[in-house]
């Protein structure tokens, strides 16, 4: 096992190095921007995976934390000087806010069963969206506002490296997090909550910690997203962001961390190319249908997505059996 793990780490390291070198060998501006976008959404999707894939809870309110990060950065850089210091401060501020909000939201909502929890998170993120819409003195509502990014980010290459750095840091952090004893408890929550509770774990505490961690990382993604656009409006709080995170996580593979990164890549790339193709044939404008169908097929037939598929293929080749999440296994109605 240890050997296999080091092999994994080796592969990750090679991919990371390739990504670091990549912008130095190509001149393509489009690719640099596209990859930056992928990194940002990969961070968001990974944080969602911590909830969906590792703890087994479906949140419809993830956009709330993404929006908190985006607005913190936007407002900081607009009201103060656009320097690196304020940028870092704004990220910290967004993370602290996201931690506070996710803590209280978690305490309020995580006691409820899955569907009630999903609905309540949807309601709360809806409230945040309305607040962003109405608090016009601060957020400028749906029109949004532009701001100047720190000088150093004028160079797309620097920002690319920063986004990649954040992605790697989040990946390593989350990887450590889910393999820690704490993460093991989360996985046991996903597998069987009542049994975990009867073993003496305070399930609510663990779920709240998971949702705080996921919220903080989503806020980081939001901050980076704001910088990449140099513009914030209410779209960062909408359901679309949560849906994106959900699609990326499911298509890439839940409960794998690397899956959401793949998912973010696949979806962003396909979005880029298919909306390019739309000029030739309008059917491609409706590319989301393809993803919807792919997503449905993934939920039914490949509950572990791309990454899970590769993993089980790899293990099958080595003649090992793979376990499937209980929460995602097909179950027939009891009769």
């Amino acid at each position, binding site marked *: 096992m240890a050997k296999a793990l080091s092999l994994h780490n080796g592969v990750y390291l090679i991919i990371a190095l390739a990504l670091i070198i990549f912008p130095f060998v190509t001149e393509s501006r489009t690719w640099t921007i596209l990859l930056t976008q992928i990194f940002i959404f990969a961070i968001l999707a990974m944080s969602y995976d911590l909830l969906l894939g590792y703890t087994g809870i479906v949140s419809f309110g993830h956009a709330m934390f993404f929006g908190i990060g985006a607005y913190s950065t936007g407002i900081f850089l607009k009201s103060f000087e656009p320097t690196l210091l304020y940028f870092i401060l704004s990220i910290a501020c967004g993370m602290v806010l996201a931690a506070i909000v996710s803590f209280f939201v978690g305490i309020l909502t995580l006691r409820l069963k899955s569907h009630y929890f999903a609905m309540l998170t949807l309601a709360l993120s809806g*409230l945040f969206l309305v607040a962003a819409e109405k608090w016009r003195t601060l957020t400028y509502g749906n029109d949004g506002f532009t701001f100047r990014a720190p000088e150093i980010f004028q160079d797309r290459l620097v920002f690319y490296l920063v986004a990649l750095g954040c992605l790697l840091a989040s990946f390593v952090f989350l990887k450590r997090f889910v393999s820690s004893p704490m993460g093991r408890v989360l996985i046991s929550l996903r597998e069987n909550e009542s049994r975990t509770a009867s073993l003496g774990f305070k399930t609510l505490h663990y779920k709240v910690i998971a949702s705080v961690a996921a919220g903080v990382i989503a806020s980081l993604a939001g901050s980076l997203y704001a910088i990449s656009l140099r513009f914030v409006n209410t779209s960062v709080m909408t359901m679309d962001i949560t849906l994106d995170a959900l699609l990326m996580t499911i298509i890439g593979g839940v409960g794998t961390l690397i899956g959401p990164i793949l998912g973010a890549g696949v979806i962003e790339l396909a979005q880029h190319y298919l909306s390019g193709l739309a000029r030739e044939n309008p059917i491609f404008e409706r590319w989301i249908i393809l993803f919807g169908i792919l997503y*449905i097929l993934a939920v039914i037939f490949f509950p572990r997505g791309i990454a899970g598929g590769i993993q089980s293929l790899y293990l099958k080749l080595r003649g090992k059996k793979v376990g499937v999440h209980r929460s995602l*296994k097909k179950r027939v*109605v009891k009769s």
Partner: protein
Amino acid sequence: MELLINIFVNGLATGMLIFLLAAGLTLIFGLMDVLNFAHGGLFVWGAFAAVWTYTATDSFMLAILGALLTGVVLGFVTEKLIIAPVYGNHVQQILITLGFMLVLTEMIKVVFGPNQLAAGVPSYLAGSFEIGDVILIKYRLFIIVTGFVVFALIQFILKRTKIGLIVRAGVLNKDMVQALGIHIKKVFLYTFIAGAALAAFGGALMAPYSGVVYAEMGLEFGILAFIVVVIGGMGSLPGSLFAAILVGLAGSFMAYYVPDLSLAVNMILMAIVLIFRPQGLFAARG
């Protein structure tokens, strides 16, 4: 006074439309224990089918029939393809029906074009009654009456017929119903189709009320219907009616008196109910 009545009638009409949507949802959840996030998609398909038929044939009755037919067909397809593989697993149901919702919404744009369509009111329902200073718009009254008729009809079917008995027994204990020799999966399928048809019917009535139909309204109304079902208590039909009227009235009064809060009022209502009484106001079971 006339202002109050107008706001009241307006809110009641909106509430009734939401009720039509929520009624199907509450049956599906109560009986089948299925969280159907694609319900709004069925609603919007009903709306578009009705508008399309109405423009083609100029008959409101045919439009409603067209919507019901669409609802039945889509309900059948949805149950067979989307819901059947994921019975008994809430997380997967949420995920898959949400995906199907996306597909349904985009399919609308493929079939009917990406723009919103204008919907007309048939001549015999256009215009309004004037009683003193109070102006009552005919179509709104029609919706309110239809809503109560549908409620009475469903209640009658549930409480007075054999089918209703099976459905109610299924809500309480489906294993027992199965053990008594009733093909519960067939009952599931029919209930789902009925729920889908109700949603499409709601969409058909919604179209002339709002004047335009657009693909994204499925998600908006789907969320509203869920809010109503959660407030009313999953599986309770009177609860859904009460909650739908509450949501409709709260929305229309807030829109007039505190417009800033009108967008948030439903979310606030649901949050309060979920925090203090998570099983809803009229829970069918414990």
